[in-house]
Each structure stands twice: as structure tokens, then as C-alpha cells.
């Protein structure tokens, strides 16, 4: 591949700004988006502010370990969303269970587990996770259990991301940002060029720290 092609490829600044803007709006960074709009002069696309505010609240509740509040807000926003997305419903309820455990509230957790989580055990795909989650009850220090990742902020972030995307999809918005699509495209094309044709792209090593 001719590296000079790379030097001469031009990308419009507005496109770059748009990509960042859509990322910010997708993740509900509304103040940052406002600031970016005034810094770059790029207009924010007309989006549903109310929708974004609510998603922001919901995401924050999850990250702040208030999964039940997130659950309620989601139901308010879109009544049948969680019914139609049982996986998510299960994840949220599990998070609440984990919160109870971490707060040392084992009786409460047990009760919650029996009433709200156990019914999921009838469906095969939830069984393994249900068992993992309930097993946390057995540990004095859940952080030291093999299921410690369920307590992690990364896991909460993951559930929050899923819920964010599902709400966006449910309310007829794109559930993935252009930025993510671009990253996926780069990965696919790189794979193709490397595997199919033995060409290794050496020029672009400064990306390897991110991808």
C-alpha cells in the first residue's frame, strides 16, 4: 500500500466534529456537548432533550448503585421496554441484589432473590448467572469471591451501556454511534487486508494502543 495515499487523504473537519458530537449525545454528556458546540461552532443536531435527560438519570442511577431506581425510571420512560428485554430486566435486578449484598443486607437480599430473581431460573439461559449471583450470599467478603466482577464498576458500566442502547432503539434512535461503526469498519477492513492478502499495515502503529 502506498503510504503517500494516507498523507493525501482529506477528511472534513465538520465530519470529525459531528462524530464526536454524536458520541457525546449518545452517552448523555449534555454539558460537554453544549461546550463543544460553542467551541467549534458546530450545531448540535436536534435531539430529544427529554429523552437524553432521562437516559442520563438512568445511567447515573446504575453507576451509583441504585439499580432499582434505574428500573423504575426506565418503566416510566417506556412501559414495556423491560418486559420486552428480559435479559436487561434480569441484569438490573441482579445488580440490585448485588447492592443489597454489598450493603450487608443479606436477609433483604435473600428475600429479593427468592421473589424477583428465582422466577428467571425457569429459563435455561439465566440459570448459570442466577446461580453465580445467589452464590454471593455464601461469602463473608463478596469481593473475594470468584464472582467479584459482578461488583465491579466495569460491570455496572456495561449494564448501563446496554440499557442506554436499548432505550435508544426502543425510542427509534440509532443505538450505535458513527464512531463505533467506524471502529468496527476499520477492524474488519484491517482483518481482511491482513488475512486475505498477507499485507500487514505497518504505517499506523500509533493506533495499536487503542485498538
Amino acid at each position, binding site marked *: *500500500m502506498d503510504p503517500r*495515499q*494516507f*498523507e493525501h*487523504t*482529506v*477528511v*472534513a*473537519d*465538520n*465530519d*470529525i466534529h*459531528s*462524530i*464526536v458530537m*454524536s*458520541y*457525546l449525545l449518545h*452517552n448523555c*454528556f449534555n*454539558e*460537554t456537548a*453544549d*461546550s*463543544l458546540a460553542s*467551541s*467549534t*461552532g458546530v450545531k448540535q443536531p436536534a435531539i430529544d432533550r427529554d429523552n437524553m435527560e432521562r437516559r442520563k438519570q438512568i*445511567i447515573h442511577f446504575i*453507576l451509583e448503585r441504585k439499580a432499582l431506581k434505574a428500573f423504575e425510571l426506565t418503566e416510566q420512560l417506556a412501559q414495556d421496554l423491560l418486559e420486552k428485554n428480559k435479559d436487561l430486566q434480569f441484569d438490573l435486578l441482579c445488580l440490585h441484589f448485588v447492592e443489597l449484598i454489598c450493603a450487608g443486607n443479606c436477609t433483604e437480599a435473600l428475600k429479593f432473590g427468592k421473589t424477583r430473581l428465582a422466577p428467571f431460573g425457569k429459563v435455561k439461559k439465566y440459570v448459570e448467572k442466577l446461580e453465580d449471583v445467589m452464590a454471593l450470599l455464601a461469602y463473608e467478603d463478596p469481593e473475594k469471591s470468584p464472582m467479584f466482577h459482578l461488583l465491579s*464498576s*466495569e460491570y455496572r*458500566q*456495561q449494564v448501563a451501556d446496554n440499557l442506554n442502547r436499548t432505550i435508544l432503539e426502543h425510542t427509534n434512535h*440509532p443505538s*450505535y*454511534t*458513527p*464512531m*463505533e*461503526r*467506524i*471502529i*468496527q*469498519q476499520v477492524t*474488519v*477492513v*484491517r482483518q481482511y*487486508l491482513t488475512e*486475505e*492478502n498477507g*499485507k500487514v*499495515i505497518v504505517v499506523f*502503529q*500509533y*493506533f*495499536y*494502543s*487503542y*485498538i
Partner: protein
Amino acid sequence: MNSSPPPANSANGDTTNNGENGQDLNLNFLDKIRLSAKRDAKEDEGEELPTELNTINSAGGFLVVSPDKLSVKYTNTNLHGHDVGVVQANKPAPIKCLTYYFEIFVKDSGIKGQIAIGFTKESFKMRRQPGWEVNSCGYHGDDGYLYRGQGKGEPFGPKFTKDDAVGGGINYASQEFFFTKNGTIVGKIPKDIRGHLFPTVAVHSQNEEVLVNFGKKKFAFDIKGYEASERNKQQLAIEKISIPPNIGYGLVKTYLLHYGYEETLDAFNLATKNTVPPIHIDQENAIDEDDSSYALKQRKNLRQLVRNGEIDTALAELQKLYPQIVQDDKSVVCFLLHCQKFIELVRVGKLEEGVNYGRLELAKFVGLTGFQDIVEDCFALLAYEKPEESSVWYFLEDSQRELVADAVNAAILSTNPNKKDVQRSCHLQSHLEKLLRQLTVCCLERRSLNGDQGETFRLRHVLNNNR
């Protein structure tokens, strides 16, 4: 309007951005200006499309093509297999797209209904049915067979006759031919013919008459829908790719640092303080964040000055803080700043002052290839009563100020003593921009490996069709 840029030379000292061949890497900013000029132009690949039948090489004597060159009639009484009335389109099917498609409508199936639609090469023997010779393919109405080079065809689809609309297409992504009848796909076969192919129509018995549609009229088949579903298939494959966590966060953060959007960065840091776990970057390959935050305050200030059109102050600040940047008066950065000053004078209607300034500071760039076209376009602003409605309107936009601000930003970043030589060009664009350029180039490369056939990456599509 001037279009393609010749390479530019400028006298560069050590402190400016030099690539291996000594060219000013900031030239990319000039290309961005040219990109603005082409904004409204359609993003086509410069291929000519088939529009009508070719009367020059058709099998004359056996058939008659109408004056509008969009229908053909077999006039002879056929006697044998070498008196087929074949006609090709005037241009080959374009290849730098996802699909190509055209249709025929059978007006009269004549005595034997031996009509065919398909694709042939330029050198095709024009007295044989498409598909009866190698390197051609044809879907025949009398037997519904598909022929692709062998004498015997293979059963393919339904026969077709009077009042049927039959279409032939090429799918470059899957490298297949496909055919349709009355709006429905009949079938597809692998395309193993290389090179340019001509849409081809053939008639072979007395009174057969066929109308051809190269896209001027609506097709019976929903080709757009077909393309969309093909793109969807590719898209679904792409969507399965897992995205490393926090990569968006990293790209946005470095983007904000790169451009010096300090307030936005503060807002972003505040918003993500509690949400994102710290990124673990492999130290060997790490882009040092501290380098990106180099001279953040100064870059922010300079950006604000340029954005407000205060070019003189900006130049003074640069002279004070980073004299090495403005030392070479013929560098891209100086050019952009002087241009902007000129533009600012035009913006407020000080045309005479503008002309004087232009003569003083911009005239020296006229001789230098690579700058000339932009200087000329700039001066063209003076020619219009309402320059904002002219073809050079983009110079008056805030986006032009942004562009100059970006160039100044990059220039300041280049003065960072910590930057290793290898990463010389790193600071010219943010990672996000580099990522996009890489994607564009990789897609072009991928297409060229596919015989240069098919669509390439279009950022517009990703931004507009985001599902």
C-alpha cells in the same frame, strides 16, 4: 474554480513540519480548503454510465434500433445461429459501485420469442446470443435458461415473453450476476468474467421487439431496496465486531486535547470522573497524554483569537511566544493567517484595504504552485456584490476560521520538544481524524484488490444512515 492541487514547495527551516521528502506537511490544511470548494459536487467516481444502445457496433442488417436508441426490433427472418440481432449499451457498466442494473421490456415476442438479456465484453461477436460465447452471459426468454459460455445452458428461471419486464444486474460485492422478472429476483450466478462488461440485449426471430431501460424510467425491480439489503448484510457482519471498551472515551479525550478545547475538556472530565474506569494503556505504544496537553492554554487562546477574526493579534502572539512558527513567511501557516486577514477585511466590507493587504502579503504566493489556486479563489471574493452567494462562499464562513485555527494549533503542537522524530506528523490531526483517514485508505486498498470493483467507504453514509 480551480480543482486538483499540484504539489507545493516552500522554503522550510528545521522547525516546521517536514515529511521525508521535505514537503510541508501542513499542506493537508490547504487540501481541506479545496475540499470545501468541492462540497456540493456529487461524490461520484467519475465513471460514465450506459444511457442508450450502441448503434455503431450492433448487428446491423438483422435488427433496427429506434431513433431514441432505447428499443430494438428484429427485422430479418432468422435462418441460423449466426444471425442473432445483438446490441450493446453505449458504455460499459460502471464498477465503482455496489451494483449495476438495467431492464428490458418485451414489447413483442415475435415468432419464436428468442429474446435474451445479459452482459458481454467489448469484443463480443455480435451475431451470437449473449452466453453462447465465452466471457459472456445471457438469460434467454425462450427456454428460461442461463448461458455463460458453453453451448448448453443451464435451467435458471422462468421463460419470459411479451409484456414481461426482465432485468440483468451485477453485484460487485458478491461478484455475481443476478436477473429479475417483473420485479422479482429470478436467480444469481457467480461472475467469473473479469474486466468491463456491456449491458447486452439480443433478438432473434422476426418481429421481436424490446424496449431498454438504463435508468431513465422507474424499474420494475426495486434495485435500491436490493442494494439496501445487500448493504445490510455487510453491515450485520460489521456490527458483530466487538468494540474495545472505552475506546470512544479515549478518542474524544485526545480529540479535545489535540484541538485545545479546554472548557469542553473540563466538562468532559467532570462528566466522566465517576463513570469511566481508568484506561490501561500499554506503555510501549502509548501516546503520551501529557504531550497532547502541551501548551493547552496557549493553544486555546490562539484558537479563540483566530475564531474571533483577530488575526493581527494572533500573529503578534505567535511572534512573541513561538517565533519559529512565523519565521518562514512562506510557510502554510503564515499563508493561512495572511489569507484569513484578507478575508476578514472583505467580511467587513473594507475592500480597498483588503486589496492593499493582499498585494502586500499574498502576492508572493502567486508564483508558488500549491498556493496559487487558493490565492486566486480568495481574490475572487472581491468580484462579487454578494460574495456569500458566490462559488467561493466558504471563505467567509466560520469554518474557514476554524481551519486556520487548526493549522495554528498543529503548528504550536509541533514545537513540543518532547515529540520524537518518528511522530513528527502525529500532531497534525487528532487520532480520530487519523483513524478516519486510515479507514478510507484501507477501503480503497481493499477495493483495488477486488479488481477495483465495488463501493468504497463513504463517511457520509455512516453519519447519515446510522441505525
